[in-house]
């Protein structure tokens, strides 16, 4: 987590606009808990994660829209069982992700 925060600081100090996606709610077993974050810089770098990898692509698309001036968005994802991990880890959870611009 602190790694994502370091990147946000670094990109922002450099003058890049930055978007932050945060897991705000989970239902059933989700890969990462509320508060987990992913960040995207204007230059296209990505840090952190909001799931085990199943929804990051879609989140990046929305983050790009937000960086381009779009309003903050609340996204909902159902994670299909087939993509989920096993052995006590995520299976078929759902997550809500809030995507916003970072204001330095």
């Amino acid at each position, binding site marked *: *987590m*602190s790694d994502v*925060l*370091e990147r*946000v*600081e670094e990109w*922002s100090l450099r003058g890049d606009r930055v978007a932050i996606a*945060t897991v*705000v*709610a989970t239902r059933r*077993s989700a890969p990462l*808990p*509320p*508060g987990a974050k992913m960040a995207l810089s204007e230059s296209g770098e990505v840090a952190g994660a909001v799931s085990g990898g199943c929804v990051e692509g879609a989140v990046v698309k929305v983050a790009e829209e937000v960086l381009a001036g779009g*309003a*903050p968005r*609340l996204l909902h994802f159902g994670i299909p069982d087939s993509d989920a991990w096993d052995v*006590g880890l995520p299976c078929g959870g759902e997550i*809500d992700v*809030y995507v*916003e611009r*970072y*204001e*330095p």
Partner: protein
Amino acid sequence: MSAQSSFLRLAREGSRAALVTLVSGGRGRPGAHLLVLPDGSSEGTLGDAGLDEAARRHAGELLWAELSELREEDGCALFVDVSAPAPRLVIFGAVDYAASLCRVARAAGWRPYVVDPRSRFAAPERFPDAERVIAAWPAEALAQIGGIDRATYLAVLTHDPKLDDAALTLALDSDAPYIGAMGSRRAQSERRERLLRAGISEERQSRISAPIGLDLGARTADETALSIMAEVVAVRNGRDGRRLSQREGRIHQPA
């Protein structure tokens, strides 16, 4: 500096803080942030005084639970993002077990402290994994680290009745979520008598976890440290430390 950027700075530093975001709703300014600190003060606004007050209340509930959560308030969705420092484990007694416990606690992401008034034992080089080694009596040592808060766990390993009792007396007056004490059954029964004579009832003493640790059958100092740390983590998460293979239900959800 925005409330959001203040929060990210505090989170980077490992400080305790909450950022409330107005995710949706008919009041205030959607997307706005309010930063809430443990002393109840706040920075920024959600664009509605009533929502700000509700946000401070929700944040106050979650700051010490150390949970980030979506809260509903009068048709508005508030996301409370919580940052908290690594929990502290204060170990009384600069004994060999303390060095092992520091190592295991550090590996688990905790901040271990060692307290012992005997400066010959409380030497920092004996405890390379400790956040701090404090050569002082418990009252002074605890004052030096800002007292015992709800994220400070205590392990009393001294084997010295005077030091033991001084640490436990303070511990039992505090908000510490965990007080573990090492010692044989006989040492414990003697301690119980001493604390009773000092006016600490059996009922108040029942907060003390003694013998300390989970039943791992530990044979070495490192294994004993693992058993203590396992108990501390279980207490923090509201679990009893049983084997998962013999338990039904969710693995990651609260108990």
